[in-house]
C-alpha cells in the first residue's frame, strides 16, 4: 500500500484517530491522577466497566480454542479456514484484556507480583496464570503464520512437532480460566443477585463462552467478507456457508445446553419466583435470556435459518449481545443491587476501553493485509498431514 493511500482520510479513519487520541489522553490522566480522579469506581463498586469488559472480551475470544480443537484434535478439517482468524481474534482479544487489567490495577507497576508471590487458593491467581499460559499458546499457534511470511521454515518444523500438545494445553488453559471467571463470584453468595449467583457459575460461563465465541467468529466472517473483498486482492475471504451453518449448529447445541443448565439451576434452587418479581434486575435478566438464548435457539432450530446468510448474521449478533449482557449483568448489575449504590462508567473509563477496541480492530486489519490469514478449505499443512 502506498503512503498516500494510508494517509487518505476516510470517515472511519478519522473517527478512529479521534478515539485513540482521546483514549491516550485519558490513559495519561489515569496513570498520573489515579483511579479516583478518572473512574466512577468507589468503595461500594470496586469493579466496573474495565473488569466487565475483560469478562466479555475473554468470553468472545473463546473461538480460539474451540476452533483449534475442532480442527486439530477432532480432525474436522472443513473448519480449517476459521482457525487463523479465530486464533488472531483470540490473541488480540486477550491483549486488550491484559492491557485493561493493568490499567484497572490500583498499582499497575506491581503487575508482575503474581509471578513471584503466590496464593494458590485465589481464583484470581489461577486466572492470571492461565491467561499468561494461554497467551503463550496463542503466540505459538500463530507463530507459523508470521514465520512462513518470512520464509523461516526451520522453526516452523519444530513448532509443528509440538503443535498437538500446544493445542491440547490451549484447550485446557481455556477451559480453566473461562470457567474460573465464573468462579470469581462463588465467594459472594450474599452479594451477587440470585438471578445470577449459582454454584454452577463456572459451568455457565464455560458453556456460554463456547456459544458466543463461535458466534463471534461467524459474525467476523461476515465482516471479513465485506472488509477484505476479492477485488482488493484477497483470497478465500468469501463466505463459506457450509462452514458457517455447521458452526451455527454447534452454537445451537451449546445454547440449549446452557439453557437446560440454567433451568435446572432455577428449578433446583427454587429461584423460579424471582422471575416474576418486578425489578430492574429481572428486566435485564429477561433481556439477556431472550436476546442471547431464546431467540437464537428458536431461530437456529430451523435449518432454513441456519443456512440463510442474513439470518445467521442477525442470530450471531443476538448471541454476542446475550453474552455481553450476561457478563455485564454478573459483574455490574447483579452486584450493584446489594450495595445499594449506582455505578455508571466515567468518560475516561469508556474512552480508554474504546481506544483499545479501535486499536484491536486496527491490529487485525494490519495482520489480515500482510499475512496469509485466510486460507482455502484445506491448507498445505493439512494436506501434507493427511498424506
Amino acid at each position, binding site marked *: 500500500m502506498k503512503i498516500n493511500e494510508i494517509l487518505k482520510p476516510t470517515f472511519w479513519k478519522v473517527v478512529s484517530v479521534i478515539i485513540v487520541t482521546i483514549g491516550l489522553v485519558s490513559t495519561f490522566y489515569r496513570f498520573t491522577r489515579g483511579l*479516583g480522579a478518572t473512574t466512577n469506581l468507589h*468503595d461500594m463498586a470496586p469493579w466496573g466497566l474495565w473488569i466487565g469488559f475483560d469478562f466479555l472480551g475473554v468470553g468472545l475470544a473463546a473461538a480460539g480454542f474451540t476452533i483449534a480443537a475442532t480442527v486439530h*484434535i477432532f480432525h474436522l478439517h472443513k473448519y480449517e479456514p476459521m482457525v487463523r482468524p479465530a486464533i488472531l481474534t483470540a490473541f488480540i482479544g486477550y491483549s486488550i484484556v491484559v492491557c485493561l487489567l493493568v490499567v484497572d490495577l*490500583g498499582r499497575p507497576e*506491581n503487575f508482575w*507480583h503474581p509471578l513471584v508471590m503466590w496464593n494458590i487458593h485465589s481464583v*484470581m491467581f489461577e486466572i492470571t496464570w492461565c491467561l499468561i499460559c494461554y497467551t503463550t499458546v496463542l503466540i505459538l499457534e500463530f507463530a507459523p503464520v508470521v514465520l512462513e511470511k518470512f520464509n523461516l521454515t526451520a522453526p516452523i518444523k519444530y513448532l509443528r512437532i509440538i503443535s498437538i500438545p500446544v493445542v491440547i494445553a490451549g484447550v485446557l488453559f481455556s477451559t480453566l480460566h473461562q470457567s474460573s471467571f465464573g468462579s470469581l463470584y462463588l465467594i459472594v453468595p450474599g452479594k451477587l443477585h440470585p438471578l445470577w449467583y449459582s454454584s454452577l457459575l463456572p459451568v455457565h460461563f464455560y458453556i456460554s463462552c463456547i456459544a458466543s465465541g463461535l458466534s463471534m467468529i461467524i459474525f467476523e466472517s461476515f465482516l471479513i467478507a465485506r472488509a477484505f473483498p476479492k477485488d482488493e486482492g484477497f483470497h478465500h475471504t468469501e463466505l463459506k456457508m457450509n462452514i458457517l451453518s455447521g458452526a451455527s449448529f454447534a452454537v445451537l447445541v451449546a445454547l440449549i445446553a446452557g439453557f437446560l443448565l440454567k433451568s435446572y439451576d432455577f428449578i433446583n434452587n427454587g429461584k423460579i419466583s424471582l422471575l416474576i418479581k418486578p425489578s430492574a434486575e429481572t428486566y435485564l435478566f429477561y433481556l439477556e435470556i431472550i436476546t442471547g438464548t431464546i431467540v437464537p435457539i428458536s431461530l437456529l432450530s430451523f435449518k432454513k435459518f441456519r443456512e440463510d446468510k442474513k439470518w445467521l448474521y442477525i442470530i450471531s449478533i443476538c448471541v454476542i449481545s446475550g453474552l455481553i449482557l450476561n457478563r455485564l449483568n454478573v459483574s455490574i448489575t447483579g452486584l450493584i443491587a446489594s450495595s445499594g449504590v449506582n455505578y455508571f462508567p466515567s468518560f475516561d473509563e469508556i474512552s480508554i476501553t474504546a481506544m483499545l477496541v479501535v486499536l484491536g480492530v486496527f491490529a487485525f486489519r494490519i495482520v489480515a493485509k500482510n499475512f496469509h490469514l485466510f486460507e482455502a478449505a484445506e491448507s498445505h499443512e493439512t494436506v501434507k498431514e493427511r498424506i
Partner: protein
Amino acid sequence: MLKENGILFDVTLCVGCGSCYKKCKEVNSLPQANNDFLKDHLSNNTYTVVEQYDKLYTRKLCMHCNEPACASVCLVGAIKKSPTGAVVYDGDKCIGCRYCMQACPHKVPRYEWSSTKPRIRKCIMCNNRVQEGKLPGCAEICPTEATLFGNIDKLIEVAKNRLKDNPEKYYQHIYGLEEAGGSHVLIISPVPFEQLGYVSKLPKESMPEFTMRAMEKIPSVVVGGGVFLSAMYWLTKRKNQIAKEEKNNTHGN
C-alpha cells in the same frame, strides 16, 4: 487452646462516647475526616466507626474472620491471617485488584481511590501494638469496657455467660461466632443484628469454602480433559485414515 486474640463488643455497655473512633485515628495516624464522629463511615481513613441506632450505639470494623474471604482471594497474599488472630495487610505486595473488597462478606475493606499509590485500608486489630504487648487503641481507651480485647476463647465464654446470666438484657445470639465461618470480633446486643446495620443471614460456612468446592475440581478437569483430548485426537485421526484407505481400496478395485 488457641493463643489467638479477638475483640468482644457489647452494645449494652457502649455509651457512644467515640473515644475508640478517635483513638483509632490517633494510633493509626489517620486524618480526622468528620467532626461529628457519629456521621462518619468506614473509609480509607476510618477503620472503625460508632453508629447510633435510636438509643443504641454500635461499632463497625473488620471482623477478623477465622477464614477470611479477603485473604483467600488475594492473589499475591498481601492480606494474611496472622497467628495472633488479626487479619493483616502488606501494602508492598498489593497490586490493587480490589478482589478483597468484592469478596468480604462484611463489606469492610476500603481503598485509597484518590492516591496514585493506593492501598487497601481496614482495621488490623493494632497488630503491631499487640505484639509490643499493648492493647489495641479502641480496647485501651474504652471507658466502659464495651470493647474488650483478649484471648478469643475466653471472650467467647464471657459472651456466652453474659447471654446466659441476663437473658432479658440480650438478644440470644453472638454475632461473629458462626457468621461466615466465624470471626475474631464478636458482638452481643439487646436487639437483632440487622437492626444495627450488620450483614445478617450470612452462611455458617467460611466463604473460601464456596470457592474451594470449584477449585478442587481443577486437577481432575486437567487430567480428564487431557486424556479425553488426546484420545479424541488419536481416534478421529484413525477414523479419517481408515476412511481414506477404504476410499483408496474402492478406487483400486
